[in-house]
């Protein structure tokens, strides 16, 4: 019976090809547009590290200007980064299960082979806990040891891409690399890793590639590394040396901690308060006590990682989908009404209302599914276009299975919704009256 219904549906669709094409196009375009924008929104607002997002916390402490808050629009907020000195001391206290202080920098790599010219590579200067905290996958080796952090050893972890460029993708653990006149030893190569959003550093951009290499935070002093990310200052200080710079009140170091459980949060803030209490005795931290930690999703909210534009597009494109559905309903209704005589004839020959209804619904489902599949193709194209427009890293803007499933569900549901009323109307035709007018 089902295959008979499908056959009838196809036949009926063929009889009115323009109407059918319009309906399929309406659903396809509606699904295509709304799935494209929904996917972008979904990527931006997704949880980048679902297993741990409630135990990873960004740490803020209010070391800012006694006269005015860090952010006039949000006076309750402490600066979103720490001073170098505070980060270094918190790292030494190690009050969480794991912790890292970090910033973005860049180094000149001097390849040993004679042909390749020196080039600049982005670097994340961080403690070794970074890799374990953020579940970073490795292909070769791993993060460096605690001793490397303590002794400020020149060790480096590379991304897969950079390892490809420098060592042809081979296992480079133990190999040497010259940067800033210093010989670094490779200890690990990470695998493809694209947390989306790049939750650990929304300050310098939530949607960009992961840095090309990682080196110990403790090298900051010896190599006089400066941040290429943002830094903010309030205090007028006479800074004429690197030493003075890293001891200044400028905030430019990001700090993350991992706690055993989400409930340990207030205890951790108490640790911060105790630390600040000590610093107050030294004449620092003149503002009221205002230390705070934010879990990953709160941190994304704080930095408004989901662009307002993405929300606007989702809203408008779902209204678009409504228009497409209204079109489909209107078209179906017109079409069914136009087939009154045929249906009356079938009814007169003994087809029950249920049979007629079923057949109409199958026809609508076929239209909905066809439109949905074409819509998915349109969404793939749309996402390619958006990736191109926004110069997103390749592979960042893509359809995942959740979205494919959603698209199919939405198209079938909307096809059904659009078809229910017309099908019901058709079933209520009185066959006798209709046949008489013939």
């Amino acid at each position, binding site marked *: 019976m089902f295959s008979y219904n499908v056959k009838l549906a196809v036949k009926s669709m063929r009889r009115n090809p323009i109407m059918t094409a*319009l309906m399929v196009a309406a659903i396809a375009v509606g699904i295509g547009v709304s799935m494209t924008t929904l996917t972008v929104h979904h990527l931006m607002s997704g949880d980048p590290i679902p297993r741990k997002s409630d135990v990873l916390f960004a740490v803020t402490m209010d070391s800012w200007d006694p006269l005015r808050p860090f952010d006039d629009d949000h006076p309750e907020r402490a600066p979103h980064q720490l001073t170098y000195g505070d980060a270094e001391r918190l790292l030494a206290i190690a009050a969480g299960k794991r912790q890292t202080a970090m910033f973005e920098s860049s180094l000149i790599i001097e390849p040993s082979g004679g042909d390749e010219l020196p080039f*600049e590579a982005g670097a994340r200067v961080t403690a070794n806990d970074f890799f374990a905290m953020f579940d970073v996958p490795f292909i070769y080796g791993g993060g460096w040891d605690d001793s490397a952090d303590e002794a400020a050893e020149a060790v480096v972890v590379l991304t897969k891409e950079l390892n490809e460029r420098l060592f042809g993708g081979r296992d480079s653990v133990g190999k040497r690399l010259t940067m800033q*006149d210093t010989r670094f030893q490779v200890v690990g190569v990470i695998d493809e890793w694209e947390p989306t959003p790049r939750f650990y550093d929304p300050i310098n951009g939530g949607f960009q590639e992961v840095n090309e290499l990682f080196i110990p935070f403790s090298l900051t002093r010896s190599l006089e590394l400066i941040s290429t990310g943002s830094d903010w200052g309030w205090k007028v200080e006479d800074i004429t040396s*690197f030493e003075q710079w890293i001891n200044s009140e400028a905030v430019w170091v990001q700090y993350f901690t991992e706690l055993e459980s989400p409930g340990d949060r207030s205890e951790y803030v108490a640790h911060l308060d105790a630390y600040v209490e000590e610093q107050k005795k030294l004449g620092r931290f003149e503002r009221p006590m205002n230390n705070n930690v934010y879990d990953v999703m709160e941190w994304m909210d704080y930095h408004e990682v989901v662009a307002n534009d993405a929300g606007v597009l989702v809203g408008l494109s779902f209204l678009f989908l409504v228009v497409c559905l209204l079109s489909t309903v209107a078209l179906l209704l017109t079409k069914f009404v136009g087939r009154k005589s045929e249906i009356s004839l079938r009814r007169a020959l003994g087809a029950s209302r249920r049979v007629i209804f079923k057949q109409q619904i199958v026809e609508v489902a076929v239209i909905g599914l066809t439109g949905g599949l074409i819509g998915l193709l349109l969404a793939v194209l749309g996402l390619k276009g958006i990736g191109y427009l*926004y110069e997103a890293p390749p592979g960042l803007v893509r359809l995942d299975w959740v979205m494919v499933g959603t698209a199919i569900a939405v198209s079938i549901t909307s096809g059904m919704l659009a078809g229910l009323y017309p099908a019901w109307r058709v079933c209520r035709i009185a066959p006798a009256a209709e046949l008489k007018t013939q």
Partner: protein
Amino acid sequence: MGFRPMVSALMRNKTGAILVALQVAVTLAIVINALFIIVKRVEKMNRDPGIDVENVIITYVRGFGADFDVVDSITNDIDLIKSIPGVVAATVSNHVPLSGSGSGTGLRVVADETVDAVGTARYRWSEEGLDALGAKLSRGRNFYPEEVDYILPESNPPAPPSILVTQELADDLFGDDDALGKTVYWGSMEPSTIVGIIGHMHGSWVNWDKLGNVVVQPGKPAYTTNKYIIRVETGLRDELIPIIEQKLGESNRRRVVKSVRSLEDMAARSYRRDRGMAIILTVVISLLIGLTALVIVGLSSFHVTQRTKQIGTRRALGARRIDIVRQFMLENWLITTAGAALGIVLTIAVAYWLEISFELPRLDWRYLPAGIVGLWILSALAVVVPAQRAASVPPAVATRSI
């Protein structure tokens, strides 16, 4: 022919008419709001930056190794760049306007730190800086060469005696008073005197509401990464980019030429969100308008076919072709207008929602009448062909049985 037959015809297919009216209403709400956003973004992108963006090339270089002398390197680089035929002016700068990366500071008209400072972008460049950007001084003077020194990262130079500000920053600081020759104070409470006023110029961050606030100090920043601003003769830019890259690369192997790009590229990158939004919305409303028009064409064609007999009867009873056309056009107009009325309410609701949830600017009411007129035209165009077809139904059809 009056409204009555039309209305009764519509009443017979009430649901169909209501559906089309609803579709028209939602279409109107989307199109008007999207169009408003597009126009705002295009206006933003087309603001005058006060810079000769088309003819400026930006170069980033970075030296390495213990024996690298940054001052020497910058001096040689600038000399080399200026020796290339077609280059008009060049300077080293701490930051590049419109690039998204910059330095900000606060200025005050009194030396009192409890007074809130006026925020502004801050640049440091040589006496050739204005020329290298193609920015124009409206009053006062440029820096003298003897005021411009190299500034090393570890040095903390005192505030310069002479600075330039944009007119917008001057207005923010001094209101209606003339700013030229006045003293302003930095965060350190050191004073500087405004010696020149730049008529208009954009700073680094295109999304900042004080984009036009710029203060310039004289200096040649000799930091880790050296940024060169180079202006070339009109039309030579794309030809000179590879030449500059090659010559700089060959001249010093202890220095990485990070990038040589046009300022136009960099500015486009800064505006890419706005451009992306405008393009996406344009595609969306084009699809929407196309779809709505096709649906109206499709439905009215179908109705014409359905009502062949009725039209034939009317024609046989003496209705002219024009009467039939008019009937269909009017019917369509009635539906569209009913939809538009509902659409206005919906448009305002959507605009309000966008304003509250996404901090978009308030919808300009003039878009409403414009949208409705556009809708009338569109729906009239969509129905004109089916109406013509209806009019060509011969009266004889009425007498034939099906």
